[in-house]
């Protein structure tokens, strides 16, 4: 067991997979010599050499295109898009090419690519470098989407994403990079589509993702002081979506809250609310409540950004209000 930062766990998890599969390569802007603008790929160039860890020009379409073309001809690839907002620049390759090619060729083409990208707010970067874009990715048939919340899960889900033969978007949260946690020794391999109950409770279920997980846990702590026993689920994966874990938790608690960093409309919580409303309606003792960032571009000033993204305080208050 070693304590490790979420940031270091990224390079550690990639290295685990690069050692296992000598075909695996990675490419992206400033990922090799500089170790990444967020220092999430430090040491990989030194360990695996310039043929396997490659710097690219500022060409997001060329990056994802090259990843896809290599993957469909037998070389698995990890591609980095520096900030998740930049996915908009290469959305065609992600949404129309990687995601659809297998289906439209009658299964002839397999695209084992992991698209790593730094997602989410809290860094005061302003609207074009802060958004949580998980809903952009989740809505596309043919893409898998994961977002770890702890260093251990970074490693386990990285392995799962790399070993999965389909394209996987791997969302690394910028505001979690400096956080630390235990990472067990030895190989860690998770399964995509498995959520984790990170706190057990009986009165309500809180489902959260990435940065919202530690906040939901802190809110649950405060709710406990009020006599409300909250179960917290770390979703970890949006596609595949672990509806079993959510439905069985709701069957127990009868109440559901989602805590989402993405702007409100079409956030993943809406999908979960609809599934629970349809399939667990008679388990519910009250309305499903979504706690989200408002439907706005993110502001830069810290006071404004902190008001926008669900805080521990806001999660606590919104839950207490409806649980009363």
């Amino acid at each position, binding site marked *: 067991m070693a304590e490790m930062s979420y940031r270091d766990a990224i390079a550690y998890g990639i290295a685990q997979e690069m050692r296992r599969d000598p075909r695996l*390569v990675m490419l992206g802007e400033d990922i090799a010599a500089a170790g990444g603008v967020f220092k999430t790929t430090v040491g990989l160039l030194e360990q695996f050499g310039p*043929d396997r860890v490659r710097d*690219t*020009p500022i*060409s997001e*379409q*060329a990056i*994802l*295109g*090259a*990843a*896809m*073309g*290599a*993957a*469909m*001809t*037998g*070389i698995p*690839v990890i591609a980095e898009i520096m900030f998740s907002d930049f996915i908009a620049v290469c959305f*065609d*390759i992600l949404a*129309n*090419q990687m995601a659809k*090619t*297998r*289906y*439209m*060729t*009658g*299964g*002839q*083409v*397999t695209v084992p690519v992991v698209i790593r990208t730094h997602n989410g707010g809290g860094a005061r970067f302003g609207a074009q470098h802060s958004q949580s874009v998980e809903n952009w990715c989740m809505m596309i*048939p*043919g893409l898998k989407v994961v977002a770890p919340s702890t260093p251990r899960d970074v490693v386990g889900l990285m392995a799962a994403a790399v070993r*999965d*033969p*389909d394209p996987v978007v791997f969302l690394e949260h910028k505001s979690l990079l400096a956080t630390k946690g235990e990472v067990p020794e030895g190989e860690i391999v998770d399964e995509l*589509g*498995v959520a984790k109950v990170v706190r057990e409770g009986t009165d309500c279920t809180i489902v959260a993702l990435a940065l919202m997980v530690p906040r939901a846990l802190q809110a649950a702590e405060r709710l406990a002081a009020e006599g409300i026993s909250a179960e917290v689920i770390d979703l970890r994966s949006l*596609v*595949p*979506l*672990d*509806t*079993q874990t959510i439905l069985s938790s709701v069957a127990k608690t009868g109440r559901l809250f989602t805590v989402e960093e993405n702007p409100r409309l079409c956030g993943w919580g809406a999908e979960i609310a609809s*599934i629970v409303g349809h399939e667990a309606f008679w388990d519910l003792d009250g309305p499903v409540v979504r706690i989200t960032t408002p439907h706005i571009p993110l502001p830069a000033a810290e006071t404004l950004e902190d008001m926008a993204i669900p805080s521990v305080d806001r999660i606590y208050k919104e839950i207490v209000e409806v649980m009363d």
Partner: protein
Amino acid sequence: MSTETFDPQLLDYSNRPPRLPSPPNEANDRIDIPLDQRMRMYELQQELRQFEKRAYDLFMQNLVKGTSHLSLGMEAVATGFAMAMRRDDYTFATYRGHAHTLARGVPMGPVMAELLGRGTGLLGGKGGSMHLTSVEHGMMGSYAIIGAHLCIANGAAWSAQMRGSDQVTVAFFGDGTTNIGAFHEAINFAAIWKLPIVFVCENNLYMEYTPIDLVTPVEHPAADRAAAYGLERIVVDGNDADEVYDTARRLIEKARSGGGPSLVEAVTYRHGGHSRADPGKYRPKEEVDAWLQRDPLTLYHQRLLRLGVPEIELTKIAQDVARRVDEATEFAKSSPPPDPESLMTDVWADGGSSWRR
């Protein structure tokens, strides 16, 4: 332009001065190509021509639904390149990809069945005319979003480079495609990574319904941009299969031996409209007539006669191809629609489409 001074005549492109072809080059008779290979190139051009004429007829009979983009008049490009490629080389094409698919040896029957949306189609009916793919033939796909496939083709070339397989990737695209960002990203990327790839612009003078010279500041939309990426400026007669072949074998050999990427512009013309039943009325009549005269099949036919091939042999080839196109048509027409179960298969590599557990 204000509405008062707007002159609709200006936008009737059929009134513009025609862009006429240069005269055919008889000197190309002397390009060093064995006669039996030339016979095969004639046969292949016949296959592409007759297949697509049939596809057009079937479209007009409402048997081909949706859309189709024909390469009638552009067969020499697909032929010249396919003949110069090795069996395991990779082709990436656009929605105008019937010819490139057939030229790699994909049988006509499944291609025709795909156009008709049948279960025996090349893609089981899930791709259609614009997405023809046959990985086992090195036909790595037909892509319908302008520009993207040039970036993807780079990846296949990169993979071949990493695997040390000597395979070369050839990516075809249109003149209009030179104005989208992905084109420039792809050429730059290939140049700096010295990828084994040949980018082939099929300049048919039109992007959809707009003359390319109205939307491009240089005469040769691909070739005149090559210098920006440190590449040679190459323009070939896209209606002369031998000239295309001669250039293709040089550039493919260069790529195979580590010499990096090339960008070549083949000037050609489509006989029909952009897609579907488009009559192509936006083109000056004199221009269309002149290019019809300069039909690649007619030119090739004349060349073979000049080289001493008896007319009767060429007729036999054409008749044999006609019979095979009939067979492919019958196969497609008599095939059942796709199995309803296939609707929900092959989203994921496990063969299924489930997004939840």
